[in-house]
C-alpha cells in the first residue's frame, strides 16, 4: 500500500495578539490519501483555515508553527527551504480562497493570473498555458471560455470568479487542492453550480482535496471523510456517512441540531390594518430601478421574511422603508398613514417606530462608545429619558437581551463576542420602543449555534412586545425557523408571496422551487440526486427564469 499524500502529526501553531503568543492549533493529526476529499468543519476560530494553509507549510503573518510534522508525498515540509516550498506551492498544492473577488488581483486579467503559475514555475510556455486556461474555463462551465480570461476581475460575477479560481488552482494539475470556504460568499443557487463544478473537477483529475467549511450540509456533499474542529482541537473524525448518521460527540450533535429551532405557531395576520404597508414602490440608484412595483404588508406580531439572491433588491426595500432611499413611485404607510419619503422629513415618532438591526454588528456599533451610551442614546433621543430613569432602563434592556447589566454596561463593543454585539444591536433597536424592526441578515455573520440564540431571542421579544419584523435573509433555513409570511424576490420584483406554509408547500413558483431545492441538505446524496433531477427536467438557473 502506498503512503498517504499528506500526513500531519501533532501540529501546533501559535498566533500572536497583543504580543502574547497563544495556541491556535493544539496538536492535530491529519491523514489524506491520493484522490481523497477531506472535509474540515467547525465554527469561526476553530482553526480550519490555519490548518488548511499549514498543509502548504504556510502560516499567515502573526502566526508560527511551533511543533509537529507536515509530510507531503514523503517530504517533510517543515524542514524544507523557502525555495523548495515555493516550488511546491501552486504546482503540487494549490489553494482556492474564500473570496475570489478579493483574491484575484484587480490590476490583471484573469488569464494572466492563471498563466503566471505554469509560466513562472517553468511547467508550460505562455501560449500553452493560455490554451490550457481556455480549456479549463470551459471545463468549469464558464460562459465564453475563450474570451472570459481577458476580462478583469471586477468585470466578472462572484460565482464565475470562484470557478475561474478553481480553474486557476488546476493550472499545474496539483496533487492537492485546499478549498477554503469557496462557496460561503455565494448565493444558494450559485453555490450549487460551483459545488458541482468543484466536485466534478476533483473527481475528473483525481485530485486530493481539503474542503473547509462551516456549513455541514455543504461538506457532506463534497467530502469522503470529515474532521470536526473546535478551539484548535480535533473533536471527532469519521467517514461522511458515519458522521452524518451517528455523530458521537456532544459538540458534533449540537452542530447537527442547530437547524431544529422553529417558531411555535404562525401568527395569522390580524384583521386590523398593517403596521407597515409598502405600496407599489419603484426605487433605485441613478437611472437604474432596483425595486420594481413592490407591494407587501406587515402586521403586528408578525414576521415577514424577504428572501432572494444578492442583487434582488432585499436591502433596497429596507432602505426605502427607513427613508434612506426615497422611492421614485409608490409610498410607505405606517399604521395607515403615508410616511414622508425621506427620513429627513419624518418626525421623531415616525422615526421611532421603524428601527433597524444590521448584518455586521461590528460596524453598526460605534467602537468608541460604551454599551451604556450605545443603548442610552435612543432612550434620550426618542423618549427623553435622563439620569436614573435612563440608567434603570438601560439595565432593563440588557436583562432583556440576556446580558448581565453589571458586567456589560461599561464595556466597549470590542470586549464582546459576535453574538453579544448583535444582542446589543437588538437592545439599541428595542430602546426606541418601536412597533416595527427591520432585521437585515442579522444572523448571516454568526456561527450557527450563536445564530440560533439570536433567533430565539428575537422570537421571545416579538411575543413579549407584539413586534412586527421584516426579516431580510438569503438563508432559507432561517426563513423556515422564524417567518410567518414569506416574500420571494428576484431582480427587483416579487415573484411570490404568502404564508410560510403556502410558500414552502407545492406547487411552487419556478424560482421559489429553484431556491428551495438549492438549499443543501444533510443527506450526502442530496447533490447527486438534485443534479440528476435537474438534468432530467432541464437545467434551471435564476437567469433563465427571469
Amino acid at each position, binding site marked *: 500500500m502506498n503512503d498517504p499524500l499528506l500526513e500531519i502529526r501533532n501540529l501546533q501553531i501559535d498566533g500572536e495578539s497583543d504580543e502574547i503568543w497563544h495556541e491556535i492549533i493544539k496538536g492535530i493529526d491529519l491523514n489524506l490519501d491520493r484522490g481523497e476529499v477531506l472535509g474540515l468543519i467547525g465554527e469561526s476560530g476553530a482553526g480550519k483555515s490555519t490548518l488548511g*494553509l499549514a498543509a*502548504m507549510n*504556510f502560516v*499567515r*503573518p502573526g502566526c508560527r508553527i511551533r511543533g509537529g510534522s507536515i509530510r507531503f508525498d514523503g517530504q517533510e515540509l517543515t524542514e524544507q527551504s523557502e525555495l523548495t516550498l*515555493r*516550488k*511546491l*506551492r*501552486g*504546482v503540487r498544492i*494549490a*489553494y482556492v*480562497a474564500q*473570496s475570489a473577488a*478579493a*483574491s*484575484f*488581483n*484587480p*490590476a*490583471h486579467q484573469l488569464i494572466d493570473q492563471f498563466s*503566471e*503559475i505554469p509560466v*513562472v*514555475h517553468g511547467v508550460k510556455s505562455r501560449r500553452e498555458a493560455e490554451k490550457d486556461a481556455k480549456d479549463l474555463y470551459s471545463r468549469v462551465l464558464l460562459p465564453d471560455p475563450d474570451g472570459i480570461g481577458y*476580462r*478583469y476581475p*471586477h*468585470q466578472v460575477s462572484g460565482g464565475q470568479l470562484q470557478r475561474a479560481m478553481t480553474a*486557476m488552482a488546476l493550472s499545474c494539475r496539483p496533487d492537492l487542492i485546499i478549498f477554503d470556504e469557496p462557496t460561503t460568499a455565494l448565493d444558494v443557487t450559485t453555490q450549487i453550480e460551483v459545488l458541482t463544478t468543484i466536485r466534478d473537477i476533483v473527481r475528473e483529475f483525481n485530485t486530493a482535496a481539503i474542503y473547509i467549511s462551516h456549513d455541514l450540509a455543504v461538506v457532506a456533499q463534497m467530502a469522503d471523510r470529515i474532521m470536526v474542529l473546535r478551539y484548535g482541537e480535533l473533536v471527532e473524525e469519521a467517514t461522511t456517512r458515519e458522521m452524518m448518521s451517528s455523530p458521537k460527540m456532544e459538540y458534533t450533535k449540537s452542530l447537527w441540531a442547530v437547524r431544529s429551532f422553529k417558531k411555535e405557531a404562525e401568527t395569522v395576520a390580524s384583521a386590523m390594518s398593517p403596521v407597515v404597508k409598502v405600496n407599489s414602490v419603484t426605487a433605485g440608484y441613478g437611472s437604474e430601478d432596483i425595486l420594481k412595483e413592490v407591494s407587501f404588508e406587515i402586521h403586528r406580531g408578525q414576521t415577514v421574511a424577504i428572501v432572494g439572491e444578492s442583487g434582488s433588491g432585499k436591502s433596497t426595500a429596507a432602505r426605502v422603508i427607513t427613508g434612506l432611499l426615497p422611492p421614485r413611485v409608490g409610498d410607505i404607510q405606517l399604521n395607515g398613514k403615508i410616511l414622508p419619503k425621506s427620513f429627513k422629513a419624518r418626525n421623531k415618532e415616525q422615526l421611532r417606530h421603524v428601527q433597524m438591526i444590521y448584518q455586521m454588528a461590528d460596524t453598526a456599533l460605534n467602537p468608541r462608545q460604551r454599551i451604556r451610551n450605545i443603548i442610552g442614546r435612543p432612550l434620550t433621543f426618542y423618549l427623553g429619558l435622563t439620569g436614573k430613569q435612563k440608567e434603570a432602563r438601560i439595565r432593563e434592556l440588557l436583562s432583556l437581551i440576556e446580558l448581565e447589566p453589571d458586567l456589560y454596561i461599561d464595556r466597549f463593543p470590542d470586549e464582546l463576542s459576535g453574538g453579544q454585539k448583535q444582542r446589543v444591536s437588538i437592545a439599541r433597536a428595542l430602546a426606541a420602543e418601536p412597533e416595527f424592526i427591520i432585521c437585515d441578515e442579522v444572523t448571516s455573520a454568526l456561527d450557527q449555534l450563536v445564530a440560533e440564540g439570536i433567533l430565539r431571542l428575537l422570537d421571545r421579544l416579538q411575543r413579549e412586545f407584539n413586534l412586527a419584523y421584516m426579516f431580510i435573509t438569503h438563508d432559507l433555513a432561517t426563513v423556515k425557523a422564524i417567518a410567518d409570511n414569506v416574500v420571494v424576490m428576484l431582480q427587483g420584483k416579487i415573484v411570490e408571496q404568502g404564508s410560510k406554509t403556502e410558500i414552502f408547500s407545492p406547487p411552487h413558483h419556478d424560482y421559489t422551487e429553484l431556491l428551495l431545492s438549492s438549499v443543501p441538505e444533510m443527506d450526502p446524496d442530496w447533490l447527486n440526486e438534485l443534479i440528476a433531477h435537474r438534468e432530467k427536467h432541464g437545467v434551471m438557473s435564476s437567469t433563465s427564469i427571469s
Partner: protein
Amino acid sequence: MNRILLMILQRFGLGLLTLFVVSIIIFVGVEFLPGDIAEALLGQGASPENVAALRHELGLDRPAHIRYIDWWAGVLQGDLGTSLANRRDIAELITFRLSNTLFLALTAAAISVPLAILFGILAALYRNSAYDRSVNVITLGAVSAPEFLTAYVLILYFSVKLGWFPSLSNIDQDTSFIDKLHQVALPAITLMGVILAYMMRMVRASIINLLASAYIEMAHLKGMPKFRVIVKHALPNAWAPIANIIAISLAYLVVGVVVVEVVFIYPGLGQLMVDSVSNRDIPVVQACSMIFAGTYILLNLTADIVSICTNPRLLHPK
C-alpha cells in the same frame, strides 16, 4: 473614456478656481501688511509729500479692488505687469529665476524619486530587518532635521572644510549645465534629505498596506517569488498612492525651496519672492505665488490623473 476625460476636466476646473482664490488671498494678505512699496523704497526719512507723489506715480493711490481687477486684466492678456521696485518687466524678471528654481527642484526630484521608490520597496520587502530598521531611523532623522540646519552642516563640511562645492550658488545666464550641476549640488542634497525620507516612508507604508491584501497572499500561495509578488502584484495597485506621495513631495520641493534658496543665496523664485514681500512689491509677489500655486495644483492634478488611469475599474468599465 469619456467618463475619465470628464473627471479630468472637472479637476482642472477646480484647479483654476483654486488659483483664483489664491490670488485674492495673496493680494489681500499683502495689502494688510503695514507699509507699502513707496515707504520701502524711499526709506524712513522720506517726507510725506514725496511718498504720496511716488504712490501716485505707481498708481497705489487707487482703491485696492481697482488695482486687483487691473492686475487680472493684465494677466488675462498675458501681461504680468512690471515690478514696482525696479520697473522691470515681471515676465522677464521671473523667467530666469523660475528656470533656476525648476533646475534645482528637478535635479533633486530626478535623484530622489527613483531612490525613494526603490528604498521604500526594499524596506517593505524586508520589513523589520536590520536594513528596514536602520533606514527607518536615518530617514526619521532626516525628516526631523530642519532644512537650514542640514544646509549649514553641509556647507560646513563640503564647502568650508573639504572645499568640494561652493557655499554660495553663483548662477547666471551663461553658466554651463555641468557647472550648474556643481553649483546646485549642496542645495539639491539639502532638499533631497527631506523629501527622499518622506517619500520613502510613505512608499513603504503603502506597499505594506497592500501586502495585507488577499490577492497578495494568493500570489504567495501560487508560489510566486517574493520580488515578483512586489513588482507584479503589489506595485500596479500602488501607483495611485505613490503618485500622490510623489506629487506632494514635488510640490513641496518647488514651494519649500524658499528656505534653501535663501541659505545658499540661490537666484531662484523663492528668493525673489522673499525680497518682493519685504519690498511690498505686490505684482511680483502675486506672480510668484501664482506660479507656486499653479505648480502645486498641476502636480496634484497629475497625481489624480495617474490614480484614475491606473484604476482598472475606471480603465476597463463593465
